[in-house]
Every structure is written in structure tokens, then in C-alpha cells.
């Protein structure tokens, strides 16, 4: 028996060796074949593959992003169940109110923008006379203008790593027109959405876990995730829910000093204006205080301004932080500001295009070189997204053929967003134990739910945060997906959820009635 096994093993080994030696002859094979088996690693490999969850970068393990987190995975499962077993749930469809993704909920793109993009994606169309019948004349003209600034009219070529120069010129002109202060095209870095630009800045700023970044609480969790990924420390500053999510300098100062006393070097201040998830639009005076604070404390101001075109109240308007700083007389030598913009929000809602930019001002030449270098490793952002960014910052003007239809589309979307924001805000405020600040801007409502102790205990019993527990019950009862407030941060002991204002207007009444019905039944179940 033993001899049989030994023979079998010998045969196996020799057939292995035969197949090795049949391969391209190389010096390495003439060394003892048994060396192959002697490495300690070979014994380890069966038990410990090189890449397992235990051997992943701990920063990757640590970071979180609730917007596409657990509740969404659960919703997707339920959605599948609805398809395979219709009638298995007390609702017909999943209503995704978790993510600012307007066009996934039937918002229509701006026609003029898509005309231009179709023409620049397939420039051969411009040589055909039939195109005049299918495209507006100004979209054709704009497509030509854009192709003229792209070398060789090659939209399939890598561009300059900061983005096509001519498109940056157009964006700089758009910023100038918006702010009344000039913008330098060489300060602009076009990126695949605003998020990669945020990551780039975190990468530059964070050296060790002793580098801190001041972030609003609640915040859009890209910031917490990016800081964790880059190994830094998030220094929270709390927005004041009682004063419409007010940003108080006293709170900034307090958090800054506390961080410093713990040995943290605070490098930058993140301000999201209009706010996400909180929706507040900062007053100019507030912005001036923030600018002064950054200047005084030597912080880079990271201004997330992606919702600049989403303002729903007449008494507030968007002011870029760069404009505020310039209007205070502060120039390149006084303040370092990075302004982020995106094509994903506003009235254009072109999330899937991944277009955006950061405008960096107040940095020395050698730092700018380093920023350029990091951008160059990825070569460039997608060209179609770059073109769209230039369109967003330079839309049709009075007198253009498409101007009126463009304005009708834009106003239609913005007015509808304002109505939906109001309807949902009122609905939430009418619910027992729920208070909801107004959404002055952005795309979200962030109501506070005062959960009864019984509900909090029930959540603890299943090892869930109370707001996550509430959100899950809501999903299971109504198919509505919101993101628990713990995904954004909140004052400890308070509970919120973030709900977008994006479902189509005709769906809003249904959402409101189902939400209210669920809430009433939840409160009945858990009321103290």
C-alpha cells in the first residue's frame, strides 16, 4: 500500500517536472526542482493567501461611506425580491431617496448640453448637412468652438493633465462672470467629478494621523472617508441645528484649539455651501468670518460648492468663497482657497458624466507643481466630462437660439425642486417627534427624529444605531430608502436621516402619505 502511494506521488512529481521542463528552457529550471517546494511561503499560501481582509490596508478597512452603505444593499435585495416574487412586500417599488442622483429618478438632462456633447462625441455629424435638421444651430456652433480648442479635434486623446486649455479658459471666464473677479485657467484642474479633486487635496495635505482636517458635522461622508483613507484625523465642528444649521466661529475656534491641544496640526477647513446634508446657504457675513478665521489660523479653505446652482429661497444667494475673499481685499498672498464644482448637481444633474473641477488659488509655484504631478499620474479626466463642465459654466445666453428653451428647462427643474423641498419639509414637520430645517439649497432634507426610548432600546437589541433601525423599518414598510443620520455625523444622542428631494413631483404625495403612515405606526409601537 505504502509503495503504491509512493509510486503515485513520484509519478505526480515527475509529471509536474515534465510539464515544467517542456516550457521555455531557462537557467532557473536546472536548479534543484525540490527548491520549488522548500520555500516557507509555499506552505503558507494554502492557509494565508496574499490578499485577505486581514492583510488589506487598514485605512481601507477603516473608511466608511453610508450613502451607498448597508441600507442600500438591503434595498437592492428587496428590489430583486419584488421582481422574483411580486407581492412579497407591502410596496410595489423601491424609492431611492438616498443619493443625489437626479437623472436616475427621471429628471431630464438639459437639451442644449446633450446636443453639444453628441456632436463633440461624434464630430463626423458636423460634416453632414442633415445634422442641421436635427440639432439647434447654436449647439452646432458651440460644438465647433469646442472642437477648435481641442488639438486635432481629437476628443479621444488624452488632454493636458489639468484639462483642455481652451475649456479651462471658458470655465475661467464663466467664474469671472459669476463672481466679478478674474480667474486664471492655470488654477483650474478638471477632474472626473469633484470627488477625485477632494481626494487629491487630502493626499497633499495629510502627512500622518497628526494632520487634522476640520469638517462640518453633519457632513457629506466623502470627507470622513477620504481623511480615513489618507490616514489623517477628522476634526469635527458642529453645525447648529437650532439656528438653521448655523456655522459658528466660536465652535470652529473651540474645536481647533481642542485639536491642537491634542497635538493635531489642523491643516484645512472644509465648508460645504450650500450644505450637504443640511441644505443651509451661508450668509455673506458668515462667509467673511470664515475667511478671516482661515487667514488668521493658517488653514487652507476647502470650499465644496457643488450645489451652487441649487438655491430655493429668495433671501439667500450663492457667493463663492473666492469672491468673498477677493471682495475683502484678500489675494493670492493672503489666503489659500480650493473651490470645488461639479456637473452632477445644480439643474443639470449629470452625475454619470463624472465632470468637475477644483480651482486652486494662493498656492506657491512649487506646491502647484506637485499638484500637477499627482494629476498627471492619472493622465487626464474624461474629455466629455471636461466639455460638459465648460458648458455648465458657460450656458446659453440671451439671444442664443437655445436660450429660451434652455431657461424653460432650467427654471422648470429648479422650481420643481423648490416645491418638492417645501412639500417634504412640511410633511416631515407635521410628523410626531420630527423637526425639519428648511432646505435652503442642495438636494436634501435632514429631519431630526426624537425617538422614544423603547425604539432606542429595540435598536440596541439588534445591534443597530437607532436611526439605522428606523431607516430599515421604513424601508421594509414602504420601500423608501433614506440614509441614517449616523452616516453623516450628528450631535451624540440625536437622530436624523437624510432624504433627497429628487423623486418626481407626481410621486411626492404618495411618498409623503406612506411615510406618514409608517411613522405613525412606528410611534404607536414604540411610544413611551
Amino acid at each position: 500500500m505504502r509503495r503504491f502511494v509512493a509510486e503515485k506521488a513520484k509519478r505526480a512529481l515527475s509529471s509536474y517536472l515534465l510539464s515544467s521542463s517542456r516550457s521555455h528552457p531557462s537557467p532557473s529550471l536546472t536548479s534543484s526542482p525540490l527548491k520549488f517546494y522548500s520555500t516557507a511561503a509555499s506552505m503558507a499560501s494554502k492557509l494565508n493567501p496574499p490578499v485577505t481582509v486581514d492583510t488589506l490596508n487598514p485605512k481601507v478597512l477603516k473608511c466608511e461611506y453610508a450613502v451607498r452603505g448597508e441600507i442600500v444593499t438591503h434595498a437592492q435585495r428587496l428590489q430583486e425580491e419584488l421582481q422574483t416574487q411580486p407581492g412579497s412586500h407591502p410596496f410595489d417599488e423601491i424609492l431611492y431617496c438616498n443619493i443625489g442622483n437626479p437623472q436616475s429618478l427621471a429628471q431630464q438632462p438639459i437639451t442644449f448640453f446633450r446636443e453639444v456633447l453628441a456632436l463633440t462625441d461624434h464630430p463626423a455629424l458636423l460634416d453632414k448637412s442633415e445634422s442641421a435638421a436635427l440639432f439647434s444651430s447654436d449647439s452646432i456652433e458651440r460644438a465647433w468652438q469646442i472642437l477648435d480648442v481641442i488639438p486635432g479635434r481629437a476628443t479621444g486623446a488624452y488632454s493636458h493633465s489639468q484639462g483642455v486649455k481652451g475649456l479651462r479658459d471658458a470655465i475661467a471666464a464663466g467664474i469671472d462672470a459669476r463672481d466679478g473677479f478674474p480667474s486664471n485657467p492655470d488654477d483650474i484642474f478638471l477632474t472626473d467629478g469633484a470627488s477625485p479633486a477632494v481626494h487629491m487635496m487630502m493626499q497633499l495635505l495629510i502627512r500622518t494621523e497628526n494632520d487634522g482636517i476640520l469638517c462640518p458635522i453633519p457632513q457629506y461622508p466623502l470627507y470622513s472617508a477620504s481623511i480615513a483613507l489618507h490616514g489623517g484625523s477628522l476634526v469635527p465642528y458642529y453645525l447648529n441645528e437650532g439656528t438653521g444649521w448655523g456655522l459658528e466661529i466660536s465652535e470652529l475656534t473651540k474645536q481647533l484649539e481642542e485639536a491642537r491641544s491634542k497635538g493635531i496640526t489642523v491643516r484645512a477647513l472644509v465648508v460645504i455651501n450650500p450644505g450637504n446634508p443640511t441644505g443651509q446657504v451661508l450668509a455673506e457675513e458668515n462667509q467673511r468670518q470664515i475667511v478671516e478665521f482661515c487667514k488668521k489660523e493658517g488653514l487652507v479653505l476647502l470650499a465644496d460648492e457643488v450645489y451652487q446652482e441649487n438655491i430655493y429661497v429668495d433671501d439667500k444667494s450663492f457667493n463663492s468663497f473666492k469672491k468673498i475673499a477677493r471682495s475683502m481685499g484678500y489675494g493670492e498672498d493672503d489666503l489659500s482657497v480650493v473651490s470645488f464644482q461639479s456637473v452632477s448637481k445644480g439643474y443639470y444633474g449629470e452625475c454619470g458624466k463624472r465632470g468637475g473641477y477644483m480651482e486652486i488659488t494662493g498656492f506657491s509655484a512649487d506646491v502647484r507643481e506637485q499638484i500637477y504631478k499627482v494629476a498627471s499620474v492619472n493622465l487626464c479626466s474624461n474629455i466629455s466630462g471636461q466639455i460638459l463642465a465648460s458648458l455648465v459654466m458657460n450656458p446659453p445666453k440671451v439671444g442664443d437660439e437655445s436660450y429660451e428653451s434652455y431657461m424653460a428647462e432650467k427654471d422648470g427643474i429648479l422650481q420643481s425642486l423648490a416645491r418638492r423641498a417645501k412639500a417634504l419639509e412640511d410633511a416631515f414637520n407635521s410628523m410626531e417627534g420630527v423637526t425639519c430645517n428648511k432646505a435652503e439649497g442642495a438636494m436634501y432634507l435632514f429631519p431630526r427624529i426624537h425617538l422614544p426610548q423603547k425604539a432606542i432600546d429595540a435598536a440596541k437589541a439588534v445591534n443597530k444605531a437607532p436611526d439605522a433601525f428606523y431607516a430599515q423599518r421604513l424601508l421594509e414598510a414602504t420601500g423608501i430608502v433614506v440614509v441614517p443620520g449616523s452616516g453623516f455625523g450628528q450631535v451624540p444622542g440625536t437622530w436624523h436621516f437624510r432624504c433627497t428631494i429628487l423623486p418626481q413631483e407626481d410621486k411626492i404625495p404618495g411618498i409623503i402619505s406612506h411615510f406618514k403612515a409608517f411613522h405613525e405606526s412606528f410611534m404607536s409601537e414604540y411610544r413611551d
Partner: protein
Amino acid sequence: MAKPLDYESLNENVKKTAYAVRGELYLRASELQKEGKKIIFTNVGNPHALGQKPLTFPRQVVALCQAPFLLDDPNVGLLFPADAIARAKHYLQLTSGGLGAYSDSRGIPGVRKEVAEFIERRDGYPTDPELIFLTDGASKGVMQMLNAIIRNENDGILVPVPQYPLYSAAITLYGGSLVPYYLEEEANWSLDFNNIRQSIASARSKGITVRAMVIINPGNPTGQCLSEANIRELLRFCFLENLVLLADEVYQQNIYQDERPFISARKILFDMGPPLSKEVQLVSFHTVSKGYWGECGQRGGYFEMTNLSPKTVDEIYKVASISLSPNVPGQIFMGLMVNPPKPGDISYFKFEQESKAIMESLRKRARIMTDGFNSCRNVVCNFTEGAMYSFPQIRLPARAIEAAKSAGKAPDVLYCLKLLEATGISTVPGSGFGQKEGVFHLRTTILPAEEDMPAIMESFKKFNDAFMEEYEDYRGYSRM
């Protein structure tokens, strides 16, 4: 007043990172271009920038997807063939609301399914679309994987020398250690496992845990196509040394010889059967930027994971979700690339014609360039078997090396700068890719238009031979 972010207070890893492809030579070339000099940019694999035309069919499909209202227009058939129209409808249906909606963070499920079907057709083994993640270009995928693997400076990644410097840049950015293994120039840039074993042993003796091995096949900048035997040995090596294999296969369509066609690492892994096929961890990368598509500007790519645990895949998914989703038009380009027009389709003939023309021309240019370099004094060039580059060895005379030292520049950088000033040809010095000590190269692409090639090679030869004349020792004294 000190700025809040000045050079001194930058992340050290950023400062250490180098990426020569758009480094010193490129910046100098751009300056000269601004001054009015005619520059031939051969520093980066960017076909459309050098006159290669996009394939018609994918552009038609994506244009229709951009402007779906065209599909409702009765005249759309005047501008677009029926199969492009049908395909646009197909992709629009697969999206979650057209091109303007974030897709699944891993990419549109229907497109990932098409990628999986492509892989199965290519390799003869099924694959799971859930293990295929679409990315904004292959580079983003490479960076995501390296970021996931590298924990600290004691984690090493085996990287070929010469290599495409995305790898060295990413490893530096993420704070890991690059463990080099040298490709054998005299043996057609093949793998030398003795050398690889030495490299890994040396790294381990310094306390480095070698986690992964990068292989670029076809090679960049070296252009070699690995033999099946080499790949088998490589997989066995990774199995024994407990390494995850990162297989950069972005040039798989660019093959200019028939002896060694492209075979994916995954196919060979599965051919080898268990235990390797069940144990060896592999991540394979592909893109729409290369091949005969050359759609660099779309930023479309994917990576496919083999034998990574579900928990690991989940973590990688989590990181992908922070960036929400890859760009949707790029995803559609990927779908079209893996699922091109078939015989019988209206657009098939034109698509085939366009593709063939590009491939045949690339094959010719690979030859023209290799032969052209080999005809130059002190230049030796391996044949470009695949990819898009030529990587000639420039045997610089001692005096040229001294001149470079005095100028404070690497010898091949000096050579390439002088080449640029004299001819307008913008290349990347070999030092940007790594090379053996004292051996110099430059990388150029085979992408300039075929009709421009002879003039470019002549211009190079004129410069090179004059350069060698100038710097070779005692040349002028030979008659004394």
C-alpha cells in the same frame, strides 16, 4: 507669511513620487511648442493625438446615448445606421436613467455581463460579472488595488524594470516599497526567474513582505509578448511565493508578430488546473485606451478579480462606492469594445475595415521604427512585438555621460533633451521607466502617422549619428 500648505508641509509621499511620462521632457516640449516649434509628441500612448481616427460605430452609438431625443426623430436614420440605433437603445436600457445617472459603483451590471462574456469567449473559461469592476481608465483600477494591498513601507510590490511608471508612482504615493525585477534585454525582455528570486530574497532580508507581482503583457515600454511557458512559470512562482499577480493586459489587442499571440494570465491559470487555479490570486486589467480603439480620452477600463475572497471584494467595492461610479459613456465604450459589431451587422464591414487598417499600420510602423533605430550608430533596438512603444538602447559614449553629469542631468535625459531641441521629437528618457545601471534607453511610441515615419526616423538618425560623432572618444584622432 508662511502659507498653510507650502512645499515643506506637503505629504512626503507626494514629493517622492515621479511620473516621467508627463515629466521634464514633456514640459520642455510643451514650452517649445508654445514658442512655435513643431513638436512630435511620442511621449505617451495617445493614438488619436497623432492622427488616428476614432472607430465610427462606437462614436455613433455614444452620440445617440448622449442625445436620446435623436432616437425619437424620424430623420435619425439619415445620420445613423440601424444597428447603431439599436445598440444605443440597448445601452440606454441598461443604465439607471441614461448617461447622466450614477451607475452601480462597480459599473452597469449589463456592461459587466458583456465584459464577462467577452472574457469567456476569449479564454474558454466562464467568469463572474460580480468580480469585474469598471473604472475610469485602467489606471484608477491599478491605484485602487495597490491602495488596498499596501499597508505600510514594509509591503513590497515586485515590479518589472523597465516598467510603466504608474506602478512606481502609485507605490510611492501609497507608501509601499517597490521591489524591482529586471527584464532581460538580450533575451527579448523575457523574465529571468533567477533574478526575480534574488530580488525577492533581498527584499525579504530587509524585512519587506512581498505582497504582489506586477506583469505587463504585452510589455510597456518593452513591447515583448510573453510566451505561454513564461506565464506558466510566473503563475507557479506567485503560487509558491504567495503573491497576488497584477496582470496589466491593456495592450492585448496590440500584437505585431504571430509567434506569440496574446494569452491571458487567467486562461493559463485555469489551464494549469488545481491547486493553482483555485489558489493563485490574480487581478487582470484592461482598457479602451489602447488596442486599435485608442480611446484614451474616454477613461474606460476594468479589472477582473480571481480567487479574492468575498470579504476582500466587498472592501474594494466599498472604496469604489466613495467615488460613486465610473463615467457612464466610458462604460459604454467598454461594452462596445468587448461586444463589437459582428458579421452580418450593417456596420460590421466598415468596423472591420477601420480596425484592420489601424492594426496593419501599427504592425508596419513597429517594423519601420525598430529597423530605423537599429540602423543608427550605437543604437540597438528589440523588436516591438506588441503594445505601442519602441525602447531602443542608446549606447552613450563616456564623454556624453560626463557632459550630462556636469549639466546635473541623467545621461538619457540630456540625450532626449538634445533630441527634442534638434528635431522636435518628444520622447521619454529610459530613466523614467527604470533600467540597469549604466544602460540607457528612450521610449518613443510607434504612433506617428505611417507617412510621417520615414522622415521622423531620418531626422532621428541624423541627430543621433551627429551626437555620436560629437561625443565618441578620439574619433577625430584616428588618423593621427
